[in-house]
C-alpha cells in the first residue's frame, strides 16, 4: 500500500516536471520563431490545454484498469439514473419495499430463531417442567419438592435453578407501578451464568424462609422507575414490604420470556422437600454438565422416575389417596420433562416465521421481475446509445459490466432504503407488543441481518440486471445503428416480458390465497362464540398488595365497594369481578371430589380445570346464560351455605344423565361441601380455538370462609357499559383511587380487544401476510400495466394500420384487454396450482377453513382478474386513441 502510494506521488511529481518542460520548450521555440514572449507563453498554454485534465486523465491511467473503469462505470450509472429520476425513484422504491420486508422479517427470524440465548454456552440449558399426560397437561409447572430432589439426585446437571412469576406493585419514585416479578432460587442466576451489572446476586440468608428481604432490579426498571439513580443498598417498597436492593441485572435479562422487571428470592427450606409437594407453580432451568447431552439426561431421568416415589418413602401407587401414595413424579401419570430451553421458548412459532420469510422472498422476486421488465424496456429505448458506445470501441464485456453496475447501484440504493424501512417496521412491531412473539428483546438489525440484506441486494441486482443484457447479442448490435434495431429481437423480448409478468402474477396469486386463508382463520377465531356477550364490555385488573391487605375480609370489602361504586355510575349497566379473564387463561386443574361420583381405576384423580371466583352480578354482566338451576343471588352471601355454579362441560363430565342441581362437591383436601345451584353455558378458557374445560364458579364473598381459606388479592373487573372505553377509563381510575390511591389500573381494554389479543399470533401472521400479499398484488398489477403500456406503444404502427383498415375503437380496446387478461389468466392458473401445493404448509395455522378452501380460491381468482383488468384498461384506452396517420408516419 505505502509502496503503491509512494509510486503514485513520484509519478505525480514526474508528470508536473514533464508538463513544465513541455511548456518551456514550446515557449522557447515560439520565441525563437519570433513570437513576443507574452503571446508565446499564452499560446503555448492554450495549445497545451487544461493541465488539470492531463493530470487527472494520466493518473487514471495508473490506477488499476479495472478499478478505474468500475468507478467510471459507477459514475456513469449514477449520471444515467439521475437523468431518468422517475425510473430511478420507482426502481429504488420497489426494491426498498422488497428488500425492506425481507430485512424486517429476517431480523425477526434471526432474533427469535437463529440467535443463541444471551447466556454462556446456551445449548447446555434445559427447561424442566411437570407433565400430566392423562390430564392432558403436557407442559405444567413443577413443584418445589421436585426441584429440590431433582437438583440433589440428578448427575446430569451442573446445577438447576427454579423460578416463578407474578405481578407485584413496586413503589417507584413517582407513582406505584405494577410489574411482573420473577421469584428465583439462589441457584438460578449462577445456573444461567448471569452476573449483575451492579451489586450482587441473592445470598443464602436471603434465600431461606424468614431471611432478610432482598430484591434485584432489572436494568429496565432501574431506568424507567428510578432514573438510574444509585440505588443498590437502599430499600424500596414491593407489595407493601420494604426490600433492600442488592443488585441490578444486565440489560434485557429475562428467563423464558417471563418479562420480569424485578427479581425476588424464593425463600425455601431445601432440607424439607415434602412440605412443597403438590404445589405446582415453578419452572426449572438446569445446566447440563460438560459432555452430557439432552438425550443422556432424559435417559437418566427415566431411571430416576422409576425410583422417585420409593426414595420419598412412598409406594409405586399413582392414585392419589391410595395407600403409600406420595405426590412425587413417576413414569406414567406424573412425569418430568426436559426440553432445550431455546427450543421450548420458540415453540411452534418457527414455522410461522419461515412462512413469512418465504412470503417476503416472493415479494422480492416479484419486485425483481418488475424491475427486470423496466430495465428491459429502458434498454429498448437506449438501444441507439448502446450501439453508439459499441461502435466507439466499448467492448461487449464493458457494456455488460455497465448494465450490471447500473442495476447494482439501484439495488444497493434500494437495500439502504430497505434497511430504513425495516427499522421503521420493527419499531412498529415492538411498539404493538410484538404480537406474542417469543424473544422480542433480541430482535434487532445486527451484523448478520445487514450482511443478509447486502447479499440480498447484490443478488437481486444481478438477477434483474441480467434482463437488459439480452440486448447485447452480437447480431443486433451491428443492426442497431442502422434502423434503431428494435425489429428483429422484438418477438423474443416480448416473450420474456410476458413470462416475467405471468410469473409475478402467479406468485402474487399464491401469496394472496395464503393470506386470504389466514385472514379467514383469524376472522373465524375472533367470531367464535366465547360463551358471553362481548359487546359493551370493558375489563381491567386490580391487584391489592397482599401484605397490606392481609385480612381476607378487607379484600372482599374493597372489591365489593369498587363494584358498588362502578355499578352506580351513570352509563354503567353492571359490573363484577372475575379471577380469570376469558377466553384464555391459565389452567388450575385442582383436585375436586364430586359426591357420588366414583372414578374408575385407570382414571386420573377428579378435578376441575378452571376455577372462576366472581361476585353475584357476574352472569348478568357477562350475559352468560344459566341453562338450569339459578345463578348467584342476593340470598348467597358469606353467612349462607357455600354454593357453586358449574359449566355444561363439567355437568356432562361428572353428572351424565343426572340432574346436578343440589349435588355437592368438595375441593381437594377441604372439608367444606359446596352445593351446586346452577349450570352455566360454557365459556372459553383455554383459547377460542380450544375445547372448553370443566369449570367451577365460586362466590368471592364466600372465599374467606371456604375455598382453601384462599381469597385472591388480584382480580379482574368487568364492566358492562354504554360508555366508550375512553369515557369509562377516567371514571374507573377515579373510583379506584378513591378506595386506595396507591392502586394502579392495569390492562384496561374492551373485551373485543381481549379476544383479539388472545389470538395475537394468528393475527400477527394474518396481518403481516396480508400486507405482503397486498404489496405483491400491487407490484404485479403495476407489472401488468407496464408491459401492456409498452406493448401498445411498440405496436402503435400496427394498431394504426388496423385502424386505417377499419378496426373499430371497440375492437382495439378488446384486443389490448384480452392480451392483459390472457397474461393474468396464465399467471392465475399457475398461481392456483402453486397455492394448492403450498397452502398445506399453513394448515397448522388455519382455523375453520381448509387449505384448499374453494371459496377463497374462487374469490381470489375473481379479484385477480379484476385487478388485471383494471391494470389493462389505461393502456387499452390509450391504444384506441392512436392516430393512424401519425402512427404510420412515425419512425
Amino acid at each position: 500500500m505505502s509502496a503503491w502510494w509512494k509510486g503514485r506521488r513520484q509519478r505525480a511529481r514526474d508528470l508536473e516536471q514533464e508538463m513544465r518542460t513541455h511548456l518551456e520548450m514550446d515557449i522557447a521555440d515560439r520565441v525563437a520563431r519570433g513570437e513576443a514572449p507574452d503571446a508565446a507563453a499564452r499560446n503555448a498554454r492554450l495549445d497545451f490545454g487544461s493541465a488539470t485534465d492531463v493530470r487527472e486523465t494520466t493518473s487514471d491511467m495508473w490506477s488499476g484498469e479495472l478499478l478505474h473503469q468500475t468507478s467510471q462505470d459507477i459514475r456513469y450509472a449514477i449520471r444515467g439514473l439521475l437523468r431518468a429520476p422517475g425510473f430511478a425513484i420507482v426502481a429504488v422504491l420497489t426494491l426498498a419495499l422488497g428488500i425492506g420486508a425481507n430485512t424486517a422479517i429476517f431480523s425477526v427470524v434471526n432474533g427469535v430463531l437463529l440467535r443463541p440465548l444471551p447466556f454462556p454456552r446456551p445449548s447446555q440449558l434445559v427447561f424442566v417442567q411437570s407433565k400430566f399426560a392423562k390430564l392432558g397437561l403436557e407442559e405444567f409447572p413443577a413443584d418445589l419438592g421436585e426441584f429440590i430432589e431433582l437438583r440433589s439426585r440428578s448427575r446430569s446437571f451442573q446445577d438447576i435453578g427454579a423460578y416463578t412469576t407474578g405481578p407485584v406493585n413496586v413503589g417507584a419514585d413517582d407513582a406505584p407501578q405494577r410489574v411482573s416479578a420473577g421469584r428465583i432460587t439462589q441457584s438460578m442466576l449462577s445456573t444461567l451464568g448471569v452476573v449483575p451489572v451492579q451489586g450482587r446476586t441473592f445470598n443464602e440468608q436471603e434465600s431461606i424462609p424468614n431471611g432478610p428481604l432482598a430484591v434485584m432490579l432489572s436494568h429496565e426498571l432501574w431506568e424507567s422507575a428510578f432514573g438510574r439513580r444509585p440505588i443498590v443498598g437502599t430499600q424500596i417498597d414491593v407489595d407493601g414490604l420494604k426490600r433492600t436492593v442488592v443488585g441490578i441485572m444486565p440489560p434485557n435479562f429475562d428467563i423464558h420470556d417471563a418479562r420480569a422487571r424485578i427479581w425476588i428470592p424464593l425463600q425455601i427450606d431445601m432440607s424439607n422437600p415434602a412440605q412443597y409437594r403438590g404445589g405446582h407453580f415453578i419452572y426449572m432451568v438446569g445446566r447440563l454438565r460438560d459432555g452430557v447431552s439432552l438425550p443422556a439426561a432424559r435417559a437418566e431421568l427415566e431411571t430416576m422416575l422409576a425410583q422417585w416415589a420409593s426414595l420419598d418413602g412412598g409406594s409405586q401407587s399413582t392414585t392419589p389417596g391410595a395407600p403409600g401414595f406420595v405426590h412425587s413424579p413417576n413414569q406414567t401419570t406424573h412425569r418430568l420433562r426436559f426440553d432445550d430451553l431455546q427450543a421450548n421458548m420458540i415453540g411452534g412459532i418457527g414455522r410461522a416465521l419461515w412462512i413469512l420469510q418465504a412470503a417476503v422472498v416472493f415479494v422480492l422476486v416479484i419486485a425483481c421481475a418488475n424491475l427486470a421488465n423496466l430495465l428491459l424496456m429502458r434498454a429498448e429505448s437506449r438501444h441507439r446509445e448502446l450501439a453508439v458506445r459499441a461502435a466507439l470501441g466499448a467492448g461487449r464485456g464493458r457494456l455488460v459490466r455497465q448494465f450490471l453496475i447500473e442495476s447494482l447501484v439501484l439495488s444497493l440504493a434500494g437495500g439502504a432504503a430497505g434497511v430504513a424501512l425495516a427499522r421503521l417496521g420493527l419499531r412498529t412491531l415492538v411498539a404493538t407488543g410484538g404480537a406474542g412473539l417469543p424473544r422480542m428483546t433480541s430482535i434487532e438489525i445486527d451484523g448478520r441481518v445487514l450482511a443478509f440484506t447486502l447479499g440480498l441486494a447484490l443478488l437481486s441486482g444481478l438477477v434483474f440486471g441480467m434482463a437488459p443484457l439480452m440486448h447485447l447479442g452480437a447480431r443486433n448490435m451491428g443492426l442497431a445503428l442502422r434502423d434503431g434495431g428494435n425489429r428483429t429481437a422484438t418477438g423474443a423480448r416480448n416473450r420474456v416480458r410476458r413470462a416475467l409478468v405471468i410469473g409475478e402474477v402467479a406468485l402474487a396469486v399464491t401469496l394472496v390465497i395464503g393470506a386470504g386463508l389466514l385472514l379467514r382463520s383469524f376472522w373465524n377465531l375472533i367470531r367464535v362464540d366465547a360463551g358471553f356477550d362481548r359487546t359493551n364490555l370493558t375489563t381491567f385488573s386490580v391487584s391489592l398488595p397482599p401484605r397490606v391487605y392481609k385480612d381476607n375480609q378487607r379484600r372482599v370489602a374493597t372489591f365489593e365497594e369498587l363494584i358498588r361504586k362502578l355499578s352506580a355510575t351513570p352509563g354503567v349497566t353492571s359490573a363484577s369481578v372475575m379471577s380469570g379473564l376469558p377466553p384464555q387463561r391459565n389452567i388450575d386443574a385442582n383436585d375436586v371430589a364430586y359426591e357420588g361420583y366414583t372414578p374408575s381405576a385407570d382414571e386420573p384423580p377428579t378435578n376441575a380445570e378452571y376455577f372462576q371466583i366472581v361476585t353475584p352480578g357476574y352472569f348478568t354482566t357477562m350475559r352468560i346464560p344459566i341453562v338450569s338451576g339459578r345463578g348467584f343471588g342476593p340470598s348467597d352471601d358469606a353467612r349462607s351455605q357455600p354454593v357453586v355454579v358449574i359449566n355444561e362441560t363439567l355437568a356432562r363430565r361428572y353428572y351424565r344423565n343426572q340432574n346436578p342441581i343440589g349435588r355437592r362437591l368438595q375441593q381437594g383436601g377441604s372439608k367444606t361441601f359446596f352445593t351446586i345451584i346452577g349450570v352455566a353455558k360454557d365459556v372459553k378458557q383455554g383459547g377460542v380455538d380450544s375445547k372448553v374445560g370443566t369449570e367451577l364458579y365460586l362466590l368471592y364473598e364466600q372465599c374467606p370462609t371456604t375455598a382453601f381459606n384462599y381469597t385472591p388479592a388480584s382480580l379482574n373487573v368487568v364492566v358492562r357499559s354504554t360508555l366508550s372505553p375512553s369515557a369509562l377509563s377516567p371514571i374507573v381510575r377515579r373510583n379506584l383511587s378513591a378506595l386506595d390511591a396507591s392502586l394502579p389500573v392495569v390492562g384496561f381494554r374492551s373485551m373485543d380487544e381481549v379476544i383479539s389479543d388472545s389470538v395475537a399470533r394468528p393475527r400477527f401472521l394474518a396481518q403481516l401476510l396480508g400486507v405482503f400479499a397486498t404489496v405483491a398484488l400491487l407490484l404485479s398489477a403495476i407489472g401488468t400495466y407496464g408491459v401492456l403500456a409498452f406493448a401498445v406503444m411498440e405496436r402503435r404502427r400496427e394498431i394504426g394500420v388496423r385502424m386505417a383498415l377499419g378496426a373499430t375503437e371497440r375492437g382495439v380496446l378488446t384486443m389490448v384487454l384480452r392480451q392483459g387478461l390472457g397474461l393474468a389468466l396464465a399467471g392465475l392458473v399457475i398461481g392456483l396450482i402453486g397455492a394448492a401445493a403450498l397452502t398445506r404448509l399453513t394448515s397448522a395455522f388455519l382455523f375453520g377453513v381448509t387449505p384448499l378452501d374453494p371459496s377463497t380460491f374462487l374469490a381470489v381468482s375473481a379479484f385477480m382478474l379484476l385487478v388485471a383488468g383494471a391494470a389493462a384498461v389505461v393502456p387499452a384506452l390509450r391504444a384506441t386513441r392512436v392516430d393512424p396517420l401519425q402512427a404510420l408516419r412515425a419512425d
Partner: protein
Amino acid sequence: MAPRAPKLSRIELLQGTLDLIILQSLRWGPRHGYGLVQHIRAVSNGVLQVDAGSLYPALHRLERQKLVNASWETSERKQRVRVYKLTRAGQARLADQRSRWEQFSEAIAGLFVPPTATAEEP
C-alpha cells in the same frame, strides 16, 4: 447521450491509432513528450495534431503496459526531460499494429476502386 462526452472518450476514440502513432515515432530513437508532438506534427505536415491531454495519458498508459520505458535525461538545452524509449514488447506491439493497420488501409483503399460488376438490385 449527453452532449458532454465522458472525459476519456478522446482517448477511447483515438486509442488504437494514437498508440500506433506514438510507438512508430519512437521507433527511430527515444524522445520526450514535447519532441513527440513536434515530430508527429512535422511528419504529417500538420495534419495530425496530438494535444497534451491525449499524449501524456497515452504515454503513461504505454509505460504501464511496459511497451515503453521512461527515464529522466538532460536535454541539449540543459533541461531535465523525461525521455521515452521503445521496449522489446513495444517493438513487437508496433509490428503487430502496423500489419493490422496496413490490412485496414488496404481494405479501405479497396473501397475506392471502381466496382467491376454492378450490384444487384433487390
